[in-house]
């Protein structure tokens, strides 16, 4: 199996889906001739032409809204928000429209749109090119939010998102784009949206996380294993709606749970994970449910000192895991 980077898995999934289904098209800012500011759509303009690889005006609400309109009449649009931070002008279209079209029309209409956006920090992006925005959308039934951690998951989940009958937000960690590589089959496959993935089995403690932090947890788990501590690492993959079953199962098994996110803590995805556990397996727990997250500040600053202070890393995760194991 070829080893490719996280971003190449994005491109591969887009290309294969566009080849498979002529209704699939992509639109966004600079995704055409330039191939995207991160090059996620490189080569697609050349292969599929201007009409299916549409450079749009600089207007996110229209990007989302036009995609929604096209999706309602049978197209399969994949819209790119250049940075997750710039999804904000499109919130009305995403929450009031995409998420509610099937429901409000009593299943008469639907809206199979995918909105991709790079999120996350650690790339000197400062306040507005580093944010985790998933929590803003993670209270809206009708939406699904996918945040893959590996190239394998990227390909399988992006394809699943494009084939999904409902709107999917697909957030890609921009620091993972080139730093994370992995084996990806050349063949066609999809992975289930709505299912968490146990990336590592273990009996002593559970770490539940998603995105880039999965790798930090995996690295730390290897270190702990050398000291005889076996960590179960649960990759949420779909952060909304959550896969309660897998969360509950792992929490009940180890009784010690650490939740990790790069986002700031209050109101984050891991708060919901904690609430699910507290509701369902309180008496299986041997330690308080720990949350490890960014500080309560709007987003990470530009200066390297402060960026590093905010950003999650393997050391922070390892430290929290050891504390939990010793609890």
């Amino acid at each position, binding site marked *: 199996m070829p080893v490719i980077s996280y971003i190449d898995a994005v491109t591969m999934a887009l290309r294969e889906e566009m080849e498979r289904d002529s209704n699939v*098209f992509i639109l966004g800012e600079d995704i055409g001739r330039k191939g995207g500011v991160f090059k996620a759509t490189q080569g697609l303009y050349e292969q599929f032409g201007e*009409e*299916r690889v549409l450079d*749009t*005006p600089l*207007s996110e*609400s*229209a990007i*989302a*809204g*036009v*995609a*929604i*309109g*096209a*999706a*309602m*009449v*049978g*197209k399969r*649009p994949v819209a790119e928000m250049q940075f997750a931070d710039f999804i904000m*002008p499109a919130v*009305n*279209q995403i929450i*009031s*429209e995409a998420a*509610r*079209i*099937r*429901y*409000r*029309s*009593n*299943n*008469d*209409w*639907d809206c199979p749109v995918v909105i991709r956006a790079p999120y996350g920090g650690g790339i000197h992006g400062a306040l507005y090119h580093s944010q985790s925005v998933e929590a803003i959308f993670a209270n809206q*039934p*009708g939406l*699904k939010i996918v945040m893959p951690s590996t190239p394998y998951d990227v390909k399988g989940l992006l394809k699943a998102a494009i084939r*999904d*009958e*409902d709107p999917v937000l697909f957030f890609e960690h921009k620091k993972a784009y080139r730093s994370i590589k992995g084996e990806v089959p050349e063949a066609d496959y999809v992975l*289930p*949206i*709505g*299912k968490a993935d146990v990336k590592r089995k273990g009996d002593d403690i559970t770490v539940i996380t998603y995105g880039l932090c999965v790798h930090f947890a995996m690295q730390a788990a290897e270190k702990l294993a050398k000291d005889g501590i076996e960590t179960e690492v649960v990759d949420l993959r779909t952060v909304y*709606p959550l896969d309660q079953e897998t969360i509950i199962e792992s929490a009940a098994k180890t009784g010690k749970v650490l939740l990790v996110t790069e986002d700031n803590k209050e109101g984050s995805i891991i708060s919901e994970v904690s609430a699910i556990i507290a509701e369902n397996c309180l008496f299986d727990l041997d330690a308080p449910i720990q949350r490890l997250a960014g500080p309560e500040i709007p987003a990470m600053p530009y200066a390297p000192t402060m960026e590093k202070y905010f950003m999650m890393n393997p050391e922070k995760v390892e430290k929290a895991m050891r504390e939990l194991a010793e609890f």
Partner: protein
Amino acid sequence: MENRHKNMGLSDETVLAMYETMLLARRIDERMWLLNRSGKIPFVVSGQGQEAAQVGAAFALDRSQDYILPYYRDTGIVLAFGMTVKELMLFVFAKAEDPNSGGRQMPGHYGQKKNRIVTNSSPVTTQVPHAVGIALAAKMEKKDCISFVTFGEGSSNQGDFHEGANFAGVHKLPVILMCENNQYAISVPADKQLGSAKVSDRAIGYGMPGYRINGNDPLEVYQYVKEAADRARRGEGPTLIETMMYRLTPHTSDDDDRSYRTAEEVEKAKLEDPMITFRTYVKETGVLTDDREQQMERDIEQLINEATDYAEQAPYAKPEQALDFVYAETEQEGTR
């Protein structure tokens, strides 16, 4: 009175059908107010005074293939596109059988796929980019259909109007944007809404033609929308049409318009009521005879009576039906 429709290539039958659709819309609207004031339905949003523009426009479209994105006052448009009186009554009574939403949405939030009436929400103007997206899809698929979207003049100040119109302008998409300028956005008069003199002044900013026309005249509206539709189908891009009219009722059944406009102003506007002026036209040009008119009124009344009775007696959705259709059925197990 001069016969204007002959020169436009409109037959007497078509003009009569236009009048009848307008009248039906008006009578339904009046009935809804009665039902509201007698406590039978909780809410009415009204199209009185806007029927001419709605019906004139709808008749200029290809009702067998075009997509429409009406806003909450567009009873005339959805009637012309095939929604039945019974369906409208099921909607205002919020019954399970309502084809727009199964009783989920407030009245006026139309949607009916089989008639290509695209589901609409309450936040105004979100439908403009949708119309543009539908036009984009039509262009990509080289289909002959166009999309047609309406909104109020107040709503033309939303960002989505601007972004959607510009997108359509850049890609020369087959979409018609029709503003129903009824001179108020709830209580706020148009001159406190619009920096410009006219909504149609905005068209040039998106590279499309813009027209302000008499929305009380269904024939004038027909003509302009027809031309815009032809142009759209020829691949020449979008058009913005501003139709001037007056909102003859309060904003909704929850509104009391006496706090922000005078009775005189409303009375004056009623002189231009298209139901009066267009009636005069069809009568004086001999399109509508007295007999035919009486029959028409009787038929409409009966239709509305039957529809009302049916809707009133129809069942509500069961409480738990509130849980249905959040996601596609096939996937509910996986995701719920």
